[in-house]
């Protein structure tokens, strides 16, 4: 009896098939074209622990580009968005930035959610003199000690987030903090700023630095339990923050201490159990702002276009791209140096800023000054799964940021 054999795939067949697939999927050879679209290159960690936040930023960018193309584009030209995955890895992020600039000839670069990658990308964009907007990488040196003439930022610095919420946490819960912080640029500066503000108010703390991709928090949470803090500040981001929150509630710690911190973004709040949807936090933008009709109109349009409620990450991308349009129209150019000068001090109209307070890019450090919202996270209310935050107060950006001198930025423009 002969044993059944599987049909063999011959090597020659494999080679022929591979060549056919390669030929079909090869990039087209680009020849000269009359009206070239404005190209925006975006590098974000679409895979890895920060992917949920990055996906929202990319959605926001796609929505904004579509909206712009229905109007008049940028400088009368259509806009094309090219997205690359940095895979939450600094080396890959730098490689993709070079690819977008050198191969795809993008006019501007956006990115990255990961502060460390955004920081490294600045080296490439300033070397190649390309305008760089950081929509959502928070670490302070980007618009602080290492500020560059070509780099602007939409999201807050960690100093702004910490300054906005520390006083509120101390006033409501107490002066004893325990920090769970990611061990990279964002975490370091956020924790340092919290500690500075806490010490000024006479508080005390313990802290634990953990890898950015950490998924197991039991040892850290046991330490926190033993310390008996008034507030546990979960500074982790993305999936790591979600995992920490889940384990926090599994340990029943929500009955023993309050939660709070810099950022607890809606993408993360949606992903945790109701017990962990709590605490006092900063939202960098919120979709439900009382008495701002422009926000109502934007939320309705965004929901119609995407079926989703916009988050701060969507807003970051919208502000980044719309600001580039405004600056390009002011400079009548997309050249990096001209665009940067045009954006310095530029005030955003209400339908782009989408907040009641004044919003502008500060000339001295290229940081967007806009309202920060301090309030409480809670389980969904009014039957709306996105209604998970109630604004307590709006802190003007300039108040939270302090002076340009305090950031350490010394802006030098190219000759």
């Amino acid at each position: 009896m002969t044993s059944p054999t599987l049909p063999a795939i011959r090597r020659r067949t494999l080679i022929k098939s591979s060549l056919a697939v390669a030929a079909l999927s090869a990039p087209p050879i680009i020849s000269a074209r009359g009206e070239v679209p404005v190209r925006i290159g975006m590098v974000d960690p679409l895979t890895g622990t920060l992917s949920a936040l990055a996906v929202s930023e990319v959605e926001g960018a796609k929505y904004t580009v579509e909206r712009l193309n229905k109007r008049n584009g940028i400088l009368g030209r259509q806009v094309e968005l090219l997205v690359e995955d940095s895979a939450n890895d600094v080396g890959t992020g730098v490689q993709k930035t070079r690819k977008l600039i050198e191969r795809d000839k993008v006019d501007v670069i956006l990115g990255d959610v990961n502060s460390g990658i955004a920081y490294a990308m600045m080296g490439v964009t300033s070397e190649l003199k390309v305008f760089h907007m950081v929509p959502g990488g928070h670490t302070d040196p980007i618009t602080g000690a290492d500020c560059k003439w070509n780099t602007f930022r939409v999201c807050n610095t960690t100093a702004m987030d910490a300054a906005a919420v520390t006083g509120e946490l101390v006033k409501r819960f107490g002066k004893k903090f325990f920090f769970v912080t990611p061990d990279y640029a964002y975490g370091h500066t956020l924790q340092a700023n919290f500690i500075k503000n806490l010490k000024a108010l006479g508080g005390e703390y313990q802290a634990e630095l953990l890898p950015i991709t950490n998924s197991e928090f039991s040892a850290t949470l046991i330490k926190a339990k033993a310390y008996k803090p008034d507030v546990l500040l979960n500074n982790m981001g993305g999936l790591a923050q979600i995992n920490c929150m889940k384990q926090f509630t599994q340990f029943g710690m929500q009955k023993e201490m309050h939660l709070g911190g810099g950022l607890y973004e809606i993408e993360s709040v949606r992903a945790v159990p109701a017990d962990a949807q709590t605490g006092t936090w900063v939202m960098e933008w919120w979709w439900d702002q009382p008495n701002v009709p422009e926000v109502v109109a934007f939320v309705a349009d965004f929901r119609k276009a995407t079926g989703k409620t916009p988050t701060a990450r969507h807003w970051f991308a919208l502000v980044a791209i719309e600001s580039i349009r405004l600056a390009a129209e002011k400079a009548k150019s997309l050249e990096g140096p001209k665009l940067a000068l045009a954006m310095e001090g530029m005030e955003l109209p209400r339908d782009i800023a989408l907040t009641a307070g004044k919003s502008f890019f500060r000339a001295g450090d290229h940081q967007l000054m806009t309202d920060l919202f301090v309030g409480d996270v809670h389980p969904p209310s009014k039957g709306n799964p996105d209604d998970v935050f109630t604004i307590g107060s709006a802190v003007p950006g300039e108040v939270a940021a302090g002076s340009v001198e305090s950031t350490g930025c010394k802006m030098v423009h190219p000759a």
Partner: protein
Amino acid sequence: MSTATTTAVTTPVMPARPWLTTAIIFAALLTVPVWLPMLGGYTALAGRVLVLGLAAMSFNLLLGFTGVMSFGHAAYFGLGAYGAGLTLKYIAPSTPLAMVGGVLLGGILGSLFGRLIAQRRGVYFAMVTVAFGQIAFYVTYSWDSLTGGYDGLRGFSRAPLNLGFTTIDITNNSTYFYYFLLFVFAVATGLQALLLASPFGRTLVAIRENERRARFLGIPIERHIWMSFSISCCFTALAGALYALLNNFADPMGLHYSLSGEIVIMTVMGGMRAFWGPLIGAALFVVLQDYISSMTVNWMSFVGLIFVLVVLFFPRGLLGMLQKGTEK
């Protein structure tokens, strides 16, 4: 009583016309700035192929020509990158000095570590190399004040090359920098080829083919494996130093075991018994990663699938099969 076994010694796969393969490869590499942009590529991509190709070829001195598997070679690559970066940042803004700094850091640590493990074989050797790699990774990750921690080492950039009679601007001119990389790559691979053609290189192949027989012939096996490991680490560290110059930064993921795995994949895909095989594997890996990751976030699945297909249908690697074909 032990049973005597006879092992058939296979002849290592050598290209029928080695000069032809070398000429084709260098002709392609020399003309990269001309043809690559026409195919939708960019010069920095070719630079990355050269750097990772050199790392894979250096690793292959150990795997393909000595028959010893290391799963921790990224450690020496990353140490080379940090050595170059720290030299540029804290010692002197000199590109050649940075390369020396990188080779010394990765090479010396690799050599010291190799001395400890040269007696180990098989899975034990491989596991210890992983362990050392992860130690190096976590030291780099944790030594924030010196290495920049997870965010990596920044604040340095490659310096123009001062030849005495002229200065070559490899800082701002990407084409000049590519040719600088190609020059270093050519020198390094030339040295590797000379080494493999020497009696020492033939001895390494003898150890790979039949260690017991080589030992009976009086060859000091452990010393040869240690020397092969050390030389491999030095060349890998040189590749790491070039990587730091290419990106103007160094980060701890350059020492992570995942990169060690990628170096193994490049080597096996290209052909570990062929001298240029790892370069072909690196080119395939880097180009696939670059193109497919622009289309889908699941790009690693495709790279994995291609790796499986290569192992199933081209067990000697792509170049190994081509060379076998020309021998028929």
